[in-house]
């Protein structure tokens, strides 16, 4: 009995400590985000971004678009990328052995002709079969290569890049016209910045016209609205917070800018994971830290990349389990950095946080409440204490979500319809009952998958949103952009 009691006491205390720690971290990040976002918005309003980009001295950017079976929306997506407001950029689309008509659509859509392209060999990738250039626009290149996955395709793009910065963009996302200008602003302001990432927003429910989001609305799907709140928390609180410690570990694969030289130095993307975006950033941190030179990896809350999120539970669970397995792989690969003082804030803050709260957190959050309940039933815990703890957890959850929503509302106000905000407020109240636990369950199952060495990534149905001409985007299911 005493062993059982000890187990419940330790579990209960552990759950409470975990709960207190994660909420404290989020509260601190929220406070930091308030300050940081208002500075960022002021800089955006009164800054000199447009003038800087009239300058002939700005660095060029190669936009790399890995594409696998993206025939549905690839032409619209590339058209929107060509139209980005940036004075010196080229587009390199990498057709990763698509089995559909992706290459044919590109050939016809942009009048492609075969042309030689000298390639660097800095990042390993599967063989490139043929390179093409657009007859209309010599800054648009298409590489047709053997299938090797997204990371492999990105590596081919890195090898073909001509400019000192590369911007990885998912083929099924929509980038706002000024997004490249904004995401590149930190590299102009501070030569120590080696990578930047922008905010990813949810396109479900928005009206899209010729590859541009023209009316920002909330999705009709409840599941998608819940993800809108989740993305606010992840991007406006989480990433802004980590940027303050220069420990940003994820730059979303859907839209991230990197100094090419550094990507080449670390050998390009790791091809054995679907979490290639996070893995690359962690590797860059370790490499740059070991070199001893000052560097910064920044998150820019303004540049907007729109992506569609799953609207059904099956696809969402698959996506979350995939992400969690990718996270586990990255953490395992870089386990030497965890709690390692030689890796600076990455080792002492970033990696431990991701191990405890992002990777193991779901297990604690799923198993904690039943254990506490059993402790209550066995009389090891007072009922009032249990109920009060539950109420605190619930109300804190609401407070953090509402704070993230307030950050959005005070700084960006992208949802212009008043009723959209009222809906978001209502969802902020109910989000903590059901959805959060479901998410934790999927992520815990991914941890189990990893322990059982199940590493298949499952199918990623990618249908593309660029092709929607006008009207609400249709329901679709694809890989999406990781918000964690």
């Amino acid at each position, binding site marked *: 009995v005493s062993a059982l009691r000890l187990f419940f006491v330790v579990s209960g205390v552990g759950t409470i400590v975990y709960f207190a720690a994660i909420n404290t971290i989020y509260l601190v990040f929220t406070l930091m985000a308030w300050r940081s976002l208002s500075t960022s918005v*002021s800089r955006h309003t009164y800054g000199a971004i447009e003038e800087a980009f009239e*300058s002939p001295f700005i660095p060029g950017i190669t936009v790399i678009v890995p594409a696998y079976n993206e025939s549905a929306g690839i032409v619209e997506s590339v058209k929107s990328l060509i139209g980005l407001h940036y004075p010196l950029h080229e587009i390199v689309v990498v057709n990763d052995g698509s089995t559909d008509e992706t290459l044919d659509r590109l050939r016809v859509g942009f009048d492609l002709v075969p042309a030689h392209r*000298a390639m660097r060999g800095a990042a390993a990738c599967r063989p490139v079969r043929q390179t093409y250039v657009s007859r209309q626009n010599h800054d648009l290149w298409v590489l047709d290569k053997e299938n090797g996955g997204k990371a492999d395709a990105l590596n081919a793009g890195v090898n073909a890049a001509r400019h000192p910065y590369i911007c990885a963009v998912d083929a099924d996302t929509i980038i706002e016209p000024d997004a490249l200008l904004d995401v590149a602003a930190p590299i102009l302001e501070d030569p120590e910045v080696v990578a930047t990432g922008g905010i990813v927003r949810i396109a479900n429910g928005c009206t899209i016209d010729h590859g541009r989001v023209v009316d920002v609305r909330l999705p009709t799907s409840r599941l998608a609205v819940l993800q809108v709140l989740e993305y606010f928390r992840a991007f406006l609180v989480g990433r802004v917070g980590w940027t303050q410690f220069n420990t940003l570990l994820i730059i979303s694969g859907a839209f991230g800018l990197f100094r090419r030289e550094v990507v080449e130095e670390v050998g390009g993307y790791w091809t054995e994971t679907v979490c290639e975006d996070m893995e690359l950033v962690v590797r860059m941190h370790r490499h740059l830290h070991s070199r001893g030179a000052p560097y910064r990896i920044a998150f820019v809350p303004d540049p907007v990349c729109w992506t569609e999120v799953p609207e059904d539970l099956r696809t969402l669970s698959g996506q979350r389990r995939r992400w969690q397995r990718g996270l586990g792989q990255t953490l395992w690969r870089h386990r030497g950095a965890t709690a390692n003082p030689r890796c600076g804030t990455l080792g002492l803050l970033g990696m431990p946080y991701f191990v405890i709260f992002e990777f193991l957190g779901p297990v604690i959050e799923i198993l904690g409440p039943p254990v506490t309940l059993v402790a209550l039933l066995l009389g090891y815990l007072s009922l009032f204490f249990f109920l009060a703890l539950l109420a605190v957890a619930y109300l804190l959850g609401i407070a953090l979500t509402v704070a993230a929503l307030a950050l959005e*509302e005070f700084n960006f106000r992208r949802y212009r319809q008043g009723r959209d905000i009222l809906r978001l407020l209502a969802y902020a109240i109910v989000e903590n009952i059901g959805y959060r636990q479901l998410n934790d369950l999927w992520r815990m199952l991914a941890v189990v998958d990893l322990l059982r060495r199940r590493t298949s990534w499952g199918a990623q149905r990618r249908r593309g949103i660029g092709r929607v001409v006008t009207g609400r985007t249709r329901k679709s299911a694809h890989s999406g952009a990781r918000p964690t």
Partner: protein
Amino acid sequence: VRVLLAIVLVLSIVNAVVLFALASRRLRLSRHDRRQAAIEKRFRPRVHEFLGGGSDLPLGLRRSEEGVLAEMLRRYARLLQGSSRRRIAEYFVRRGTVSREMSILASSKRTWRRARAAHVLGDIGSQIATPALIAALTDTRPDVRATAVRSLGKLGSPPEATEALIGAVTDRRVPDALGRWGLLQTGTRGLPVMRSLLVASRPDERATATQLIGFVGDASDATSVERGLHDGSASVRRESALALGRIGGEGDVAALMVTLDDQVPVVRAAAAVALGRLRAPASTTSLLSHARTDQFEVARAAAVALFEIDPVLATDTAAATENAHLLEVLDLGRLG
């Protein structure tokens, strides 16, 4: 339990207050936006008449109306040049806006207010603001300094700002690309200062001056720029080579060919670019050698230059050697 209950109470109140504040703020903002739009619609014909040289703008407006009118005029000022812009500047000088914003820029403790003032002064475009904006280049906050550069550029970067701007760029007080953009707005008026800086003690100053002379200078500057090819600093050598590609002539080819064998790759690449721009036939053998054997960036620059100078030689060599850079340049050349 008591502590937890207190936390529950506090959190409940905080949540209720924030939820209410967000909802009511949104309603208030919607009303405010509608009101602003209505005022703007009412003023638009009067503003157009004023910009076209017609009657003056109304006086004795309410504060909200004045704010909307000022914002409209600043928006137009960003887009307009010539007499219309001058009228806007004169209007703001008369209304005391320029002196008020200059005072905010000089003395406000809040960074965003100083940045806003610098921004507004640039929009207004009155030359009266020049000294205040030059002083703001040494502001403690980078945001204010960057906005000051932007606004000096909007004012056409008066020549008296050249030295301060070069100092701000070389001391890395302002973003490099923006600072250089600001300097370019000076045009040829800034040349005397830039020429004097070609022999400055700091390599950064020499490199910046050389680069800008490459953009706004002329053939008479080539001799002094060419000296930079022998500078101890690689960035000065690189900028000198690039500048000679723009303002140099046949007399600079021999020096550039020597630079083509510089130990630093970016300098070699710059020399190749310059030789291509100068269409120097004497350099084809060297360029061909670099296109075939040098590092990626240098080889590519040499291949492009070779094609610009002698397309036939580049074509023949590409076919014979299967050199990737030459083949790429050739394919692009065929497309025109």
